[in-house]
Structures are given as C-alpha cells and as structure tokens.
C-alpha cells in the first residue's frame, strides 16, 4: 500500500512538473496569437485580456452579417449602393441622440470614403440603429466609424464591440476600425493590416526561394561529396576530409566580413546569389550523409559494380534512394537555417525587395512602433510556415535533431 501510494504520488509530481513546464513553454505562443487578434486598446490593458473580442463566436456572427450587408460575408468591404446597419443599445435612449462620423485620415484634403458614406441614425427599440449607405461609385475594403454617445445615456452595448472606447467631455467616443469586416476581416484584421503595411508577400517569396534553392543545391553538392568520401577510394581523400573537418572550427562570425567583401567585389550584394551561394556547401550535411552512405552494405555496391554500373549510376540509382531519411533530415535543417537566419540576410541585402521574412519582420518591429496587435500578427505569419511544416512532419523534425546529436 505504502509503495503504491508513493508511486502514485511520484506520478502526480511528474505530471504536475511537466505540465507546468509545458505551460511556460507554450504561453508565449498563446500570448502572441491572442495579441495578434487584439485591438490596440485591448492590447494596452494593465490586466491581460485572455479572450479578446475578436475570437468570440458571438461577435463573428455580427461581423459576418455586417460584411454580407457591406459586400462579402467572409472578407467584408463596402460596395456602392449597399447599406449597413449597426445596432447600439443604450440604457436611456432619451438622453439625447448619438453622433456618428466616418473619420478622415489625418491631413488629407478629400477622403472619398467619408464623403460618399451617408449616415442616418434611427431610433430602434431600446437603442439606436446607425445606417450607413455608400452613395458613391467606389468600393472600399474597410469602413472605420466613430460614434459619440452621451454619457447620460448610461450603459451601452454595441452589436459589434468597438475597438476603442474613450471619454470625450460629455460623451463616450466609440471607435471601430472597420464596421463592415466580414468574419475573416474581423478576426484577421491585424493580419490584413500588417500584410498591407509591408511587402510581406515579397518577403515570403524571397525566404522560400532562398531556402528552397539552398536545400536543393546543398543536397546535390553534399550528396556527391558525401558519396565520394564514403564509397570511393580516391587519392587525397583523407587530406580533403581533414580540411572539411577543420572548416567546422571556423565560427560564422569570422566569415562575415571577408565574405561580404567578396560579394561586394562580385557585385552580388543585394541579390539572390548573396543569400544563397555562400551557404551551398554544408559540412554538417556532408557528415550526415556520409554517415548514411557508410551504413549501407558494401555488397550492394559490389553487385552494381559487377553489373557494370558507373560511380555516377551507383550514386543516383542505389545510394541516393536509400539515403532518403538522411536527405530529409539535412533538408529540414538547411531549410530551417535559411528561413530563420537574420544576421546574414541583414548584412547582404539593402533594398526591401531582397529582404527575407526575418529581415522584413525585424524592420517591421522598428516601424510598427506600439501597434503590438499588428506586430504579433506579423510574427505569427513569419513562423506559421515552419510551425505548419513541423506539425505535418513532426517525426522527421525530432528524429532529425536526435540524429544530429548522436554521432
């Protein structure tokens, strides 16, 4: 009995410790995602908001309806001739009428969005209806709105929660960044804003192209060299191999300046060459694949030899298909390394067109200032492809890492 109790207690402690650790590990991700769907006012609260308005399904329904009224239910918008109705309940409707306005961006002479939106405010049972009509000929992707409610009207509840509520003399000033959001337009507001605030599509392209080319080119080069080291007896093999081992001791920082100079002399700065070529040959990949080729039975190659296969044929017909697990491991590592790198792309690129996603994100951190919702949305976007890949091919990731550790 005593031992059973002790065993049980031990189990409980183990699970408690592991779970507590897991919460700490996972929390930053939750916090990032939660912040990415917060309005600036929600993000800037002294006490944290665990479930922001934008992830509450009740609000999704309203967002969907408003989006459908404005233009499209998923992504919203405000098309010509459409009318959108936003309901607002107040405790005491007799306290006085509301005021509503489509805010102009600061310092513009004419703003078609506010000029072609006609606003009517109608009394409805227990509150007000704000009816917005697009009288112009232009479609708008978003429609911001500001509403003033007299403070005498008591408590109020808007159908779509406002993104900010401020006090302004005798009024509550309610602000919406978009009253025709549609479901996705509502939930992913910060993502859409961030996406348009910086050329993230281009950043993603640069990152994927760089990482993809590095992986493919690196695989080709490393496979050939690894096969030669593992399976071909050629004069000078040991010496060259020693040279490769020696390069592993060189820390990356030593190479920054000379490689930068070399690229500058080649006129390759700010091009894809600069991002890709210096990283094509990887000693890590070479060692990993060599290990794989060494573990294949020699009989296989002898048989191929007798059948008249050349080394070229042996490499691609026999060794390559059998080394797929090693290739996947190296591919994942090379892709991760290229995709997540900051220092190198930061140094060799200048123009926004050549920024990788990490450099773009780093620049965005500087530019976004205090809009943490957008910042976290951008961060989420930046890690999303890798995280998705991880969930998709988790086994390969973990086995790959484990394999790199056991030599």
């Amino acid at each position, binding site marked *: 009995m005593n031992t059973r109790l002790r065993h049980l207690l031990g189990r409980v402690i183990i699970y408690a410790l592991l779970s507590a*650790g897991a919460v700490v*590990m996972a929390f*930053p991700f939750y916090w990032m995602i939660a912040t990415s769907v917060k309005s600036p006012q929600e993000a800037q609260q002294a006490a944290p908001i665990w479930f922001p308005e934008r992830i509450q399904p009740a609000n999704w329904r309203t967002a969907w309806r408003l989006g459908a009224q404005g233009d499209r239910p998923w992504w919203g918008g405000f098309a010509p001739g459409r009318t959108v109705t936003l309901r607002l309940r107040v405790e005491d409707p007799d306290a006085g009428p509301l005021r509503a306005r489509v805010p102009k961006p600061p310092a513009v002479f004419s703003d078609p969005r506010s000029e072609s939106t006609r606003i009517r405010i109608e009394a409805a049972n227990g509150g007000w209806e704000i009816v917005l009509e697009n009288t112009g000929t232009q479609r708008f992707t978003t429609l911001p709105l500001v509403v003033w409610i007299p403070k005498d009207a008591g408590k109020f509840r808007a159908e779509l929660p406002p993104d900010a509520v401020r006090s302004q003399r005798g009024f509550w000033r309610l602000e919406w960044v978009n009253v025709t959001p549609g479901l996705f337009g509502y939930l992913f507001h910060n993502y859409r804003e961030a996406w348009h605030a910086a050329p993230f599509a281009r950043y993603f392209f640069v990152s994927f192209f760089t990482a993809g080319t590095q992986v493919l080119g690196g695989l080709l080069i490393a496979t050939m060299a690894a096969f030669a080291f593992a399976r071909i007896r050629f004069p000078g093999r040991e010496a060259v191999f020693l040279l490769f081992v020696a390069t592993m001791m060189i820390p990356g920082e030593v190479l920054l300046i000379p490689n930068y100079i070399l690229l500058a002399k080649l006129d390759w700065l700010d091009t894809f060459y600069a991002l890709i070529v210096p990283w094509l040959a990887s000693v890590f990949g070479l060692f990993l694949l060599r290990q794989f080729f060494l573990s294949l039975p020699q009989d296989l190659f002898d048989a191929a030899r007798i059948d008249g296969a050349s080394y070229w044929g042996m490499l691609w017909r026999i060794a390559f298909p059998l080394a797929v697990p090693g290739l996947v491991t190296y591919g994942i590592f090379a892709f991760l390394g290229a995709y*997540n790198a900051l220092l190198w792309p930061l140094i060799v690129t200048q123009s926004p067109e050549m920024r990788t996603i990490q450099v773009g994100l780093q620049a965005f*951190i500087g530019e976004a200032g205090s809009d943490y919702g957008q910042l976290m949305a951008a*961060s989420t976007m930046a890690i999303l492809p890798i995280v998705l890949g991880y969930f998709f091919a988790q086994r390969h990731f973990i086995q790959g*890492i484990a394999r790199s550790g056991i030599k």
Partner: protein
Amino acid sequence: MVRTYVFPGLLALAVFSGLLHLSTQFEIVRAPMGALFLAFALAGPVAAYLAARLLPAGAWTRLGLALFAAGMAAGFWIPPALDWLPLAGVFLAYAGSRARLPERDAAAFWGWVFVWPALALMLIWNIFPSFFALWISLFDRFNYIGESRFVGLLNYEILWRDPLFWRALSNTFWYVVLTVPTGILLGTVVAVLLNERIRGLGLYRTIYFLPYITALTAAAAVWQWIYHPEFGFLNWLLGTPGLDWLHTPDGIFALALAPLGIQLSGFWAGPSVAFTAIMIMTVWHFLGYNVVILLAGLQSIPAQYYEAAELDGAGWWQMQLYVTWPLLSPTTFFLAIIGLIGAFQVFTQVYVMTPTGGVLNDTLTVAMYLYNKGFRDSDFSYASALAVTMFVIILALTLVQRRVLERRVTYEH
C-alpha cells in the same frame, strides 16, 4: 601508380585556373597575378603532354587533352565564361580512355569529380575568407573607401585596451556561463521526466520542442512584448508595473547582494537585468533542442543497468545520480560543446530586443560589437581583428572543455 594521379591533377589544374580567373575579375587578392597566370598557362600544356604519354591513347583522349591544353594556355585571354573548356577537355579525355583504365583510376577521377563542387565552394567561402580575415585585420581601417596601410598587430593592441570590447566579452562570458548549464540542467530534468513512461509523451515533446523551430526574430519580438514595461504580461504576473526589463542596466548579482550590504561593480556585478531577460528568452528557445537530444541519449541507455541497480536496492534518486547521469555524460558533453560555440556567437535575439546594445552597452555581445564595427562604422579591419580574437577564444575554450570534461565522460555502455 603515377597514372592514378593524372585525372585528379588535371581536374585540380582546371578548377584552380577557373578560380584564379574569377579572382582577377574582382581584384580581391593583390598577388603577382601575372606570374600565377603564366604558371598555369604553362602548366596546362605540360600536364596535357605528360597525361598523353601516361594514358592509353585514343582519338577522343587526345582531343580532350588538346582541348584542356588549349583552354589552360589561353587562360588569361579567354573570357571567364569559357572557364569550363579545360574541364570539358578532362571529361572528354576520361571518356576516351575509360574502357582501358583500371578500376583505381576511375575511382580517382570520380572521387574528385564528386568532391570538387563542395571543395571549391568551401575554398571560396570558408577557407580563403578565414585567411583573408586574418590578413585584413593587420591593416589600418581597411574598407575600400579610404587609403589603408599595413599596421601589423595594432588593431589587436587597440582591442586589448578597448573598454567596449571587454564589456562585450564579459557580457558574452556571463551569457555562456549562465545559459549553457541552465539549458542542459533544465533539459536533463525534462528529459528524465519524459522518459518515465508517461502518457502523452508526444504532446509534451511537441510543446517543449516548438520554440526551437520558431524563428528567433519572431520569438524575440514576442518576448519583447511580454517584457513591455507598461502593458507587458510579466509585469502583471509579478505585480511590478512599470519595470522596464530591457532597459535596466543594473547587474543582477549586485542587485541580489545589495540588501546584504555587499557592493559589487563592473564585471562582478554580473549580467544586467536586461541581458538576463534576454538569457531567459534564449533558454526558453533552445530548451527543446536539449530535451530531444537528451531524450535520445536516455533511450539509448540499456535497461539492464536500471534492473541491476534496482536489484541492489537503489532508489529512484540514486538511479538518476549513479546510472543516468554518468551514462548520459557523452550527450551532455556534446551539448556543452555545441552550446558553448553557439552561445559565443549570440546575435539575433539581442539585436531584435535591444537594437542599440542596451543602456550603457549592457547587452552588447561580441558578435553585436563586430556587426557594429564592421557594418555600421565600416571598419572591416577592426571587426576582423575582433572575429579572429573570438575564433581564438572559442577554440581555446573548446579545447579546455575537452580536456577538463572529457575525463569525466563515460563512453562505454
């Protein structure tokens, strides 16, 4: 016997003449280029002649060797786009004599063909630059803008007296000393717990590993937000509103010992609060890597050791202490080496969270100082001197670690 070296030699000549050709285009090395070119231009035909005498003769072999000789001799005068001509000649010569070559010669040829792409890239982007870094560190502010002259070890002398360098080095030192053991220790605890045949191992492992694959840039942005002085989560959690984690330059040891009346300053004040915050983020980021490696190490320990220990009446703690820990030491050792090398080069998270190196340079690391010197101040020489110094330090530490720790590592199972 000599014949085995014919093809590797021809390949090497062809590749090197191509590399030489490339380098002249960009005036990287101010070596007596003319003499080198003449040497290659002469060596080509001589090598082709010797090869023709050693190789089994055939029409294609002769044609290939002729192409090689012509390409090499033309060297300086043909456009770089035609550098593949000598290479093509070698391939043609090989194809022509293949049928009559012994196995060993074929192996020599293909071995070098397969190795050359990787080797050439290594020579261009790793090996040559390493020496180049050493070389430009001996100049006075070499940056292709102004005039520069050879000053010998002056940069190293300045470095020795540079307070910012010492600041960066001591910061980096604390970073290595605090993050690497913490990461390994925490990783061991988690791995041992995960190894206790628990349910939901996959889920836990997924969660613990997730930070490692996320980009440091994004992770640093998230932690910067968690550390935010006004709206940060941490300040709410700890009830310390307004505490600006990333802009507090006080050393943590000094802060911890101040209530006891002990005043610490300079190096012994320890890493600043800001830097400690960055270290916590770093441990979080890399923990999953340690866990996965240690878990693999744990799973490779044979079960019979535990069974034997159990028979001897060892408790759980004793088993961890006397069986797991020693048998896990090769893995721990590997992580310590990898961690040391990686930690010495820390840049990304520091740069994202404190782009200016913090208040009073309290988060300046060696890599960041190098970046600032090289790419902000355009002083390639000084930055290279820093890089070389860093290389020497890392190398020395790795060797020391090897000597000190390896004696305690148990390799046999």
